[in-house]
């Protein structure tokens, strides 16, 4: 089976965000970057799929040279080879999906795994856009997956429960926590990853359909009132919620 996994290189979730001088990007100074947490589920699922059906897994990332670290991480987990689609400009999700689909249409995977969302811009749309550009199916937010011949049965998380979805290969699956437990890269894996190939290609010139005007910090919230230090404060708390905040 031909399998691809798309990985993005994002700031660690514990990062405090500082706005950059141009107010269009964050200030990268001091920011630690990691593989997008949801993409670890995608990598794990791609490896499990290969273990079951055989074939090859490639990891693709759109970004600058630093994204190689994230590709390397997936190689250390067991992915066979990587492709960096190099781009130093900021692309919107449409541009990223375009870059990914231009590359993947040459490779024609049976299944492409992505995370349900990147924890930087939290768009949660690259998988769906790429599926349209490649003209293949897509199931998002997947927490359980069965592949049986050409047939796919997946469970996806929705409000108040799960949907069981049926579709067919080729397909893009975007992964949600709960699908699997990502493996750790072994020392052997890390050593092996150093020898694996990461091909580099320049991304074409795509026009963005949306444009960032400005990024800013949300209004600071004033710390509130400590109503008390034991259960005797409860009636006052309830009074405040009822009469002042009017939320109960």
């Amino acid at each position, binding site marked *: 089976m031909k399998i691809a996994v798309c990985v993005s290189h994002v700031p660690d979730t514990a990062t*405090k965000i500082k706005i950059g001088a141009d107010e269009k990007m964050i200030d990268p100074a001091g920011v630690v970057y990691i593989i997008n947490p949801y993409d670890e589920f995608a990598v794990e699922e791609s490896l499990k799929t290969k273990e079951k059906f055989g074939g090859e897994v490639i990891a693709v990332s759109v970004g600058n040279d630093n994204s190689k670290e994230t590709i390397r991480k997936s190689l250390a987990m067991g992915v066979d080879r990587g492709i960096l689609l190099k781009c130093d400009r900021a692309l919107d999700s*449409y541009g990223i999906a375009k870059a990914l689909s231009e590359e993947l249409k040459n490779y024609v995977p049976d299944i492409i795994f992505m995370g349900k969302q990147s924890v930087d811009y939290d*768009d949660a749309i690259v998988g769906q856009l790429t599926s349209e550009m490649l003209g293949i199916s897509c199931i998002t937010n997947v927490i359980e997956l069965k592949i049986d011949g050409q047939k796919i049965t997946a469970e996806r998380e929705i409000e108040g*429960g799960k949907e069981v979805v049926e579709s067919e290969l080729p397909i893009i699956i975007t992964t949600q926590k709960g699908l699997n437990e990502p493996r750790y890269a072994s020392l052997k894996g890390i050593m092996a990853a150093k020898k694996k190939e990461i091909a580099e290609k320049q991304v074409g010139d795509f026009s963005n359909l949306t444009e960032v005007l400005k990024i800013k910090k949300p209004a600071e919230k004033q*710390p509130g009132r400590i109503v008390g230090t034991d259960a005797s404060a409860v009636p006052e*708390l309830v009074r405040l919620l009822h009469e002042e905040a009017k939320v109960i």
Partner: protein
Amino acid sequence: MPKYIIAILEQRENKLKKISFEVISFSKSLSEKLGLEAAAIVIGDEIDNISEINNYGISKVFHFKNKLLSNYSVSAYSDIITEFVKQLDVEYLVLGDTSLGKDLAPRIAARIKAGCVMDIVNINLSEETPIFTRPIYAGKALVDMKFNSDIKVVTIRPNVFKGQKIDNPNTLNIDSKEIQNPNLKTRVIEIKKAEGKLDVAEADIIVSGGRGLKGPENFSLVENLADVLGAAVGASRAAVDAGWRSHRDQVGQTGKTVSPSLYIACGISGAIQHLAGMSSSKYIVAINKDKDAPIFSIADYGIVGDLFEILPALTEEIKKINS
């Protein structure tokens, strides 16, 4: 001829969901400000509460019908909506940022070469072109975006733009079309509902528990409080990773992002990843025995004390005002 703004509604089990009314009110208000014509689309079988649409300000609805479409199918929905949109002069498509809207909006956008801005929480119409604001980095920052495309697709964050009933609605005009052979290449074959539980993503009040609960059995304290408030039960990742709660309940950067009117955090320290998912709640209450816990920095009201004592007292006190 004015261009259209189309509200794409969401139904489950033949009933329009709350988010649909938020989408209608939002579209209606934007249509007035931008001089657009507002209409709605709903796909499904019979829609029990379809007659409520005009109460929120839109009086033209296109209902695409087929028994096989009572469940969601992204392939069918995308086909139907893109076909429809191509026949009209459409400027905006509006959806809710729900599991359905998130799945569908980009699919339609890609087909009609529209830009897509997801999860908006604000819109500014005082500039030359409308500016849409959305949270990024899990709410640690906000971004102002504009479109460079002719057709624009936006999804609105649930609970932020309220569904508002209008006075003297026009009569509802329903244009119903039976869909022949819907494209069911990808389709929902079953919905597994979580046992009678309100989902944190849809709740107006949330009571969340963390590691401070000490064990799964003590979540009954949280559940009892949630019951008297008609609230959903949430959890920190620590509680989820310990296996005390399902991931479905996790609030935070790698869980759900919520904006209820009231969020009560019990035995949750307030790690940055947790705050990321709930800091946009209207009112936040923290119950924690550590006065230096970061959760107090964003709480409107707090009690520094033992939750095992405070939660039962709080439940009793609320029962009193309920009765």
